[in-house]
């Protein structure tokens, strides 16, 4: 396996955002051009869903302290909007963006000119159509009790086929090519693209199509959810980090030879961690304990990614160079979040600690740390790098880039910290046998509403900038070049 050597890319593929070319707009390479249309399609869809999800997040956050807000009719009750918001965020925003990002990474790493890009675009169309229909059904009628399986089960086959076309097929097609270089990013993408459809299909079958007996459904669901979070979202985002960090710092990764061990141990253990999220449930103890052991084992891949990434960042003033580079600023932020999220996952799998925070906002904070502060921030960073190369334009406004980073960073720090602190304190009060009604923190809902508004502002800034670029292919203002 070889390093993601920054110098090995052909010249003329545009420059990093922080160091724009002296003259003219970025050129669109042939490799980039070959995947431009599906990747742009996935990013544009992701952005639209992100906006929908952020508006819904504001509404649901406000509803938690003003339950009368927008409560006129059944379609806008909390339970429904909450489920829709979550599905839109995960399937609409994160999954669309990661499919697009993975596609672009594969093309770039393999320097592969993609012949049948329309197949991926077709997959994308099916995916987004299925999601739209599924959301409409949840709005009107159907739903069930399991996070991320709320969409009607008829959507599942469409999602499955769409994913095969848009993600698994390209991954295998790229990987089949004979090349001398094998990059660990490709491993992660291949793994993630393989795990998601298999796990999704089995979970659909065992929970919705022919449901297993009673609490086993919850076990299957926890297995699905941990796979989705760590091995689809997490692994795809790690693939991007393994690409952008050395490339943009112009260096090699510390301890790169360890990275395959990191890959295998993550895939080996993360799939077993589901039951660690079900401690105290009516499932057999041996199942719960297996989950805890697996969660502790995540220490191994975490150590390796930390050596790889933080080792690299702490050399040659890497942190400050990352801070001054748009893409790496988001990526480095995400890396810190990934580390914290995994540490929390490990520490709060301990029975005594888990007993306190289980069922409180704490777990929501943990999830947001992983899926927003890590995965979404990495996607943003990647988008700042990729979109100029696909459109041949610069980002229209540097001010909007700053607004985007700061509002999202502040919002996610505030929101995660709020969930963790208020969740912990509610859990501690409950453990001290205070009556349930006296343990809720009204400030928590206020804080999360404020953060939801900040998220929305950041996402609008990002969307305005991105759509400005996607729709115009003219070159940019001077201001944008300094983004």
């Amino acid at each position, binding site marked *: 396996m070889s390093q993601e050597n920054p110098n090995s890319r052909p010249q003329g593929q545009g420059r990093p955002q922080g160091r724009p070319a002296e003259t003219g707009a970025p050129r669109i390479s042939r490799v980039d051009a070959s995947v431009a249309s599906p990747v742009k399609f996935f990013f544009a869809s992701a952005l639209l869903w992100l906006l929908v999800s952020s508006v819904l997040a504001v509404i649901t956050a406000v509803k938690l*302290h003003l*339950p009368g807000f927008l*409560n006129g009719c059944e379609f806008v*009750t*909390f*339970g*429904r909007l*909450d*489920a829709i918001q979550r599905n839109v965020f995960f399937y609409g925003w994160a999954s669309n963006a990661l499919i697009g990002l993975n596609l672009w990474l594969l093309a770039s790493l393999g320097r592969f000119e993609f012949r049948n890009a329309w197949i991926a675009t077709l997959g994308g169309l099916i995916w987004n159509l299925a999601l739209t229909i599924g959301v409409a059904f949840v709005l009107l009628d159907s*739903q*069930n*009790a399991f996070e991320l399986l709320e969409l009607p089960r008829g959507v599942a086959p469409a999602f499955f086929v769409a994913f095969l076309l848009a993600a698994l097929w390209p991954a*295998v097609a*790229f*990987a089949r090519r*004979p090349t001398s270089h*094998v990059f660990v990013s490709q491993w992660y993408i*291949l793994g993630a693209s*393989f*795990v998601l459809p*298999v796990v999704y299909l089995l979970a659909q079958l065992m929970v919705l199509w022919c*449901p297993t*007996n*009673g*609490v*086993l*459904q*919850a*076990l*299957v669901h926890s*297995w699905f959810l941990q796979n989705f979070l760590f091995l689809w979202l997490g692994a795809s985002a790690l693939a991007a980090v393994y690409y952008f960090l050395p490339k943009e710092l112009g260096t090699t990764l510390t301890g790169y030879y360890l990275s395959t061990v990191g890959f*295998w141990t993550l895939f*080996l253990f993360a*799939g*077993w961690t*589901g*039951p660690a*999220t079900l*401690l*105290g*449930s*009516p*499932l*057999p103890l041996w*199942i719960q304990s*297996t989950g805890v052991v697996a969660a502790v084992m995540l220490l191994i891949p975490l150590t390796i990614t930390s050596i790889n990434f933080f080792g690299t960042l702490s050399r040659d003033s890497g942190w400050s160079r990352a801070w001054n580079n748009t893409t790496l600023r988001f990526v480095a932020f995400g890396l810190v979040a990934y580390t914290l999220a995994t540490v929390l996952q490990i520490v709060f799998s301990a029975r005594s600690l*888990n*007993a*306190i925070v*289980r*069922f*409180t*906002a704490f*777990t*929501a904070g943990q999830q947001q740390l992983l899926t927003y502060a890590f995965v979404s921030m990495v996607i943003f960073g990647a988008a700042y790098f990729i979109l100029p190369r696909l459109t041949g334009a610069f980002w229209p406004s540097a001010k909007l880039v700053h607004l985007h980073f700061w509002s999202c960073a502040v919002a996610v720090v505030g929101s995660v910290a709020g969930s963790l602190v208020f969740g912990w304190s509610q859990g501690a009060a*409950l*453990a001290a*046998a205070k*009556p349930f009604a006296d343990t*809720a923190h009204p400030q928590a809902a206020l804080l999360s509403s404020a953060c939801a508004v900040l998220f929305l502002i950041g996402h609008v800034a990002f969307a305005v900038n991105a759509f400005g670029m996607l729709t115009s292919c003219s070159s940019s203002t001077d201001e944008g070049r300094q983004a």
Partner: protein
Amino acid sequence: MKNLNLILAGVFFTVAAPFGGLLLGGHAQLGALGRAPAEEGGPLLPALEPGLAIQGRQVYLQLGCVACHTQQVRPAGQGSDIAQGWGARPSVARDYVLQPQVALGNRRVGPDLANYGARAKSDAEIAAHLSAPAAGSAMPAYAFLFSPAKDGSLQPNERGAALIAYLKSLRQDYSSPEAKLKQ
């Protein structure tokens, strides 16, 4: 990529192992679990749910009550659920064997409902709560499940009645072979 087959085989193994170990293992243990009497010759428990309650579960799921309510009581050493008065004993797998869709939930904005039927008072009080939770409650009003009757009392519509029947059917207040009630 030279290692393609190796990677795919490896990843396949990493998916298959927990699937076999956890899911099939769990299935071997619990897949055929059924009802059982608390003591020799007693009635099979959990008791069959009334038809209206079965419809009510659908309403519960459709409205997403699970976003804020759980239905599981943890054992005494694992959280304070029993001390909170949400159940006299921990929930066990057998309690759920009749449910086509379990709604264990993983977030408690409101109290656990595993035993709500055992502590619920009258239909009228449940209806009053669902249609207009007390001021300050984070629970939204589900007024569309009710209409005021002529005498001013709340009349649940079909779904409202089903939901109330379902809520009243939620109880794990019997002895089970795995979790005896303390005498």
